[in-house]
């Protein structure tokens, strides 16, 4: 019960008026920052870092954490409304969130995302409170081989994602993997695929640039063509009844959401992985185990809830290696780390022992930030939905501006803006030709992680492939990967058998 008394002390810190105010401000700012594609939580935290000097250190780090949390909630907003993932963590949210918005159910999708985020956030904070210290050792057990096996598993949960055409899915995955190798290679130190010697390619092609291009610009082009006469955006309304209905719908999804929370927390906790694979895996598994997998990708509310619980749970999980091992799991946590160092707090194995007031104040503020985020988010949904009622000619201009600003802001290179334009046109053509875009984006997110850990593991084992199955943790993941790969195939074969002979595709 020592934990409870420590937590109570923490609440004494986090429930002071100034800290409550700080949480509300931080969460609101984070929500908007997260909702802007390209701005994302990294930039949000970076911009606010200097401002934190006007409040005491413990409030300052709470402010940063609140922004981080708010941005996680906000990421879903642009995914659902505009179909552009604001951050890589919100990619999976677009798969069903965007179709829901197109069917006029944007409000419901936003409620689902907010509630799911709340559930994911809360469950993971409870797990964090109880197990933070012992779990740090598990994170240590993860070497390159385990990381590779985990990413492999994330890939295989996605086998069925691309739709029915397996060939096209494989082509898109390969294309994504090739794009992910562009830039300076970590292992050899040599540049790869830099198109002659274009300096802009040295830092690689970021996920964000590809996603904004194919989803944002590509989508706008496609919509312009298909809706030359009438705007396709359905006017969305939000009433109290819709809110109640949304919460009832969510009630049915407790199984998906609790699974997503646990999965998200554990995957997020591993330093290399983080929230993006967690959200993708949660989506893929929800689809695999669903009774109606064919409704996924066509506006299934479960497809919004699954990734949103997981990415919020993972964002809490990724605080764990930062606080206990001093390793930031993501660029944003790296900035939080920078903030802590500024106040003389050195993250690492000793932090929980040397600075208990700080640690428990931060943990308890995650509880309050979560409550604040869900309340503020739901309160603001009518505003977000209202934005969709803009005439299409205005909306599509706004989206294009957001795409360009969002692509330019993180790297401040015009090079990326040209790439976005190129990917936008390519995305449009690929959509016309009915190629699935999700596997492409998935591959560029997970590809670098997978390649790096694969090569690190093989260098360590002197090229012996057995390293992936000899180590117990890695062997478990490899086994599960095989299972996830085979399962949808068996399902498919069964369906084909039960149906009359399938027409040639």
């Amino acid at each position, binding site marked *: 019960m020592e934990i409870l008394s420590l937590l109570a002390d923490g609440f004494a810190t986090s429930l002071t008026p100034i800290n409550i105010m700080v949480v509300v401000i931080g969460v609101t700012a984070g929500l908007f920052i997260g909702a802007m594609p390209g701005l994302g939580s*990294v930039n949000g935290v*970076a911009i606010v*870092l*200097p401002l934190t*000097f006007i409040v005491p250190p413990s409030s300052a780090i709470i402010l940063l954490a609140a922004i981080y949390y708010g941005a996680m909630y906000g990421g879903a907003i642009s995914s659902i409304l505009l179909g552009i993932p604001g951050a890589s963590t919100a990619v999976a949210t677009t798969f069903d969130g965007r179709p829901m918005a197109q069917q006029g159910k944007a409000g419901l999708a936003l409620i689902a995302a907010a509630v799911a985020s709340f559930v994911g956030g809360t469950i993971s904070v409870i797990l964090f409170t109880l197990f933070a210290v012992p779990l740090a050792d598990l*994170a*240590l*057990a*993860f*070497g*390159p081989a385990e990381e590779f096996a985990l990413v492999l598993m994330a890939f295989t949960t996605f086998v069925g994602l691309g739709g029915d055409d397996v060939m096209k899915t494989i082509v898109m995955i390969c294309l994504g993997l090739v794009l992910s190798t562009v*830039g*300076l290679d*970590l*292992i*050899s*130190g040599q*540049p790869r695929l830099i198109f002659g010697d274009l*300096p*802009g390619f*040295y*830092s690689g092609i970021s996920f964000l640039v590809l996603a904004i291009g194919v989803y944002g610009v590509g989508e706008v082009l496609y919509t312009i063509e298909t809706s030359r006469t009438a705007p396709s955006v359905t006017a969305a309304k939000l009433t109290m009844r819709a809110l109640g209905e949304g919460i009832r719908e969510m009630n049915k999804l407790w199984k998906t959401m609790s699974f997503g929370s646990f999965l998200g927390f554990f995957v997020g906790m591993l*330093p*290399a992985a983080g929230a993006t694979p967690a959200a993708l895996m949660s989506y893929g598994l929800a689809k695999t185990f669903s009774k109606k997998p064919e409704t996924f990708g066509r506006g299934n509310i479960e497809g919004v809830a699954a990734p949103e619980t997981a990415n919020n749970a993972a964002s809490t999980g990724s605080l764990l*290696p930062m606080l206990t*091992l*001093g*390793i*930031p799991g993501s*660029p944003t946590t*790296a*900035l939080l*780390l*920078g903030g802590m*160092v*500024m106040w*003389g707090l*050195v*993250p*690492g*194995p*000793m*932090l929980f022992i040397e600075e208990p007031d700080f640690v428990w104040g931060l943990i308890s503020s995650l509880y309050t930030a979560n409550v604040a985020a869900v309340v503020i988010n739901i309160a603001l949904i009518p505003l977000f939905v209202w934005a969709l009622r803009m005439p299409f000619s205005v909306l599509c201009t706004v989206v294009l501006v957001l795409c360009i600003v969002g692509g330019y802001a993180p*790297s*401040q290179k015009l090079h990326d803006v040209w790439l976005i334009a190129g990917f936008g046109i390519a995305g449009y053509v690929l959509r016309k030709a009915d190629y699935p875009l999700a596997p492409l984006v998935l591959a560029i997110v997970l590809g670098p992680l997978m390649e*790096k850990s694969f090569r*690190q593991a093989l*260098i*360590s084992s*002197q090229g012996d492939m057995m390293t992936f199955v000899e180590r117990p943790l890695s062997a478990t993941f490899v086994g599960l990967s095989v299972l996830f790969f085979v399962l949808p195939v068996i399902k498919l074969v069964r369906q084909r058998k039960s149906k009359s002979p399938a027409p040639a595709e």
Partner: protein
Amino acid sequence: MINTFTRRGAMALMASAALVLGAPASAESWKPNKPVEMVIMAGAGGGADLLARLFQSIIQKNDFSPMPVLPVNKGGGSGAEALRYLKDKEGDAHIIMATLNSYYTTPLRTNIGVDIEEFTPLARMANDNFILWVSAESDIQNLDDFVAAVKEAGDSFKMGGTGTGQEDSLVTAMLENEFGIKFTYVPFEGGGTVAKNLVGNHIDSTVNNPAEQMGFYKAGKSRPIATFSEERLEAFPDVPTMRELGHDVVYTMQRSFVGPKDMPAEAAAFYTEMFEKLSQTEEWQTYAADEALDATFLSGDALQEFLLNGREVHREILAGMGELGS
């Protein structure tokens, strides 16, 4: 000496000196009139980035600059992106760059048309150290044990470090040359990840900076074997230097700021003074002491000499590795 003056006193003194000499507007009168861009030669979240952002926050907190200082990461191509960017900003008074050792190595390894001698040296904030680490669970207690273990393992002894061509791989190559040994070098994306993999026993040794391994060291999970510094580090009084052990393997990482070619002299003086004030703040002194950094401040000609000397040292190391570009 300057510490004994109050800032205002020093300014008054300088101003009167300027009056006496009848000099035109001196350094004291120039101030940035728009936000200052602080280019970082590395990506977000790494050691260089953390440090640059720490500087930014201290500047902001103490109002050392009337205009905000905005960090911009240009880490592409091991800093090639940042170097080229700075080259194009000739004469600009509102841009400074945070450097690390890729300031030497990148122009040497690849032909990017940058001569660092042209840039304006502003301030060296610190010199970071390297230490040879093993896991606390390992049987290796000293350098002799270490060399014996590497030899016994053939070439399968795993050394973890940052990307190939970056500082850790240079130190590793220096070790290989000195002892006639061979490691399996496993590159990771940052010092923190390297530290974690050492403690998790996924690699056998590292040459991490003190700051990167400090948390695990304090928790009793990492063991320092020897330092690559000139002299023993205050934070590690019991750890011998390589030189003490009879091996002339010295390597440090500089953390300096430079401006573009032909930066106006008044502007350069402003930034140098800004960083000098920064170097005396309690925040920085405490951080440097905690992380075992050598925080001796250098500026002007002394700094330029230091930087050019560093380039020659790296030219030799790279030549030894066969990594020197044309």
